[in-house]
């Protein structure tokens, strides 16, 4: 057979799998989303209906806060770890990246262990202040959970970017008289900007679509994935759930496309 035929055949299994289990279902989802009473207007309902607007706002705010916090934490620690070697360094890096593979449910459980009714932090505050603080099931707990699965992802990307920094740029700045803080501000942070955008977008997208964590923590705080879930399984509002899913998918995809235009190829796995 010719080369061209062979290459065409190579695509065949992919074509079948993608068409059957992705393209077709997604197309159906879009159609079903528009099959409710509002028709295609269901898609704009997310933005304009006050019920859903609050949920959307919560989700975006939470994702944004998580992204910013993870970037700050990852930059401080990432710079420190890449630039300093000391006994225990490898262990510290392993500890920071180990939770990378945890599904959202496990992250939720971790937060419960930290801040739930028998939580470690609760014990601590009991000792110190005489009052047991339980915040796993509130917005703070959810935020901590999101932070828990974002930090490992972002730190890996930032550390990889720091490794690729050109040392001669920093030396040139120092030769011109810049002190350590100015070097960070004028040379290092601008050089890391693409990495910030790429990993920040991935962290944001992951946080937007996170389900397992919110599910386990069973909070009252409404985030979009939970809303979709309850509409589908409890209220059987299939069309609405479909519409919301498509909307969420579009927003997430747009943000990730932005990330890719800055050259990021990160992992946006479970949340």
């Amino acid at each position, binding site marked *: *057979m010719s*080369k061209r*035929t062979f*290459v*065409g055949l*190579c*695509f065949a*299994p*992919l074509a079948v799998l*993608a068409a059957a*289990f*992705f*393209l*077709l*279902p*997604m197309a*159906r*989802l879009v159609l*079903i989303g528009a099959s409710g009473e509002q028709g295609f207007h269901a898609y704009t309902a997310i933005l304009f209906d006050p019920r859903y607007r609050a949920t959307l706002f919560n989700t975006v705010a939470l994702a944004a806060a998580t992204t910013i916090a993870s970037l700050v*934490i990852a930059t*401080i*620690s990432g710079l*420190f*770890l890449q630039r300093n070697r000391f006994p225990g360094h490898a262990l*510290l890096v*392993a*500890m920071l990246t*180990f*939770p990378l*593979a*945890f*599904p*959202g*449910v*496990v992250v939720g*459980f971790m937060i419960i*262990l*930290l801040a739930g009714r*028998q939580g*470690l932090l609760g014990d601590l505050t009991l000792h110190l202040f005489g009052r047991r603080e339980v915040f796993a099931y509130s917005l703070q707990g959810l935020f901590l959970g999101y932070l*828990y699965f974002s*930090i490992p992802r972002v730190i890996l990307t930032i550390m990889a970017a720091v490794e690729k920094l050109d040392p001669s740029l920093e030396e040139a700045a120092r030769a011109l008289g810049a002190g*350590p803080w100015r070097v960070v501000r004028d040379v290092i942070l601008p050089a890391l900007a693409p990495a910030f955008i790429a990993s920040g977008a991935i962290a944001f997208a992951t946080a*937007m*679509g996170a*389900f*397992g964590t919110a599910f*386990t923590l069973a909070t009252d705080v409404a985030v979009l994935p939970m809303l979709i*879930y309850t509409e*589908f399984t409890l209220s059987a509002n*299939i069309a609405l*759930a479909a519409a919301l*899913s498509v909307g*969420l998918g579009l927003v*997430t995809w747009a943000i*990730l496309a932005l990330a890719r235009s800055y050259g990021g190829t990160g*992992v*946006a796995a*479970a*949340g």
Partner: protein
Amino acid sequence: MTMRDRLIFALQLLFTILVAAFLIVPAVLSMLAGITVNYFRGIQSGLTLQWVVQVWQLYSDTIFRSFLIALATLGVTLVVGIPAAYALHLRSDRFSRAIEEIITLPLAIPGLALALALLLTYGGFSDFRRSWLFILAGHAIFTLPFMVRSVMAVFGAIDVKTLDEGAASLGATPWRRFRDVIVPNAMPGILAGSLMVVTLSLGEFNLTWMLHTPLTKTLPVGLADSYASMRLEVASAYTLVFFLMIIPLLVAMQMFARQRAGAASL
């Protein structure tokens, strides 16, 4: 180092240790809780394997099923992904870039949405819907981009086109070239991709929760169950089992990545 440098170092170290503690302490705690007789009374109450045994009795089927699905997902992504990666690499034109976008879309779409789409399309085929193959379909779509990307990365690094042309000049047909030259040289990417796929499949929840039935539970689904309904020690023991499954894979991935980085710098 000046005093100021030492202070800055110490503060950064402290900060990093705190962050690491935030991440690790609950994990360690849960592992301990899984083998402690009574969590409230702590270690003093003694160590035991009773919870682990109980987990096995209650959930061993989920553990087996997770492995089954993970391996099956691996098989599917290998068969589908490697040829596709090869074809995409060779074509390198707008068509293949479009295909790459489509393959990567499942990553952008929240697992929930994907699951919903699958349910609405195939929910009617009850035999399929009720079998573990349904979950396999979701996992395959979700992990495929990782395999394809991993293999394509290796193709990019080793100039596979020249190898292919060399083999062709010696008379090998496209299929033989694929089998004897392309695949063996792509091994590092295939291995890395495989580790990634298995790890992702074992830990997948968002999709699987929507797709599962009481008879097709996977380990993460069982975990969610146990967090909601079981006592802390059992849930912890179950989490411990999950960690024991995942950690060797993570270590293997890290070692592998470091080995390849070392080889690349030669």
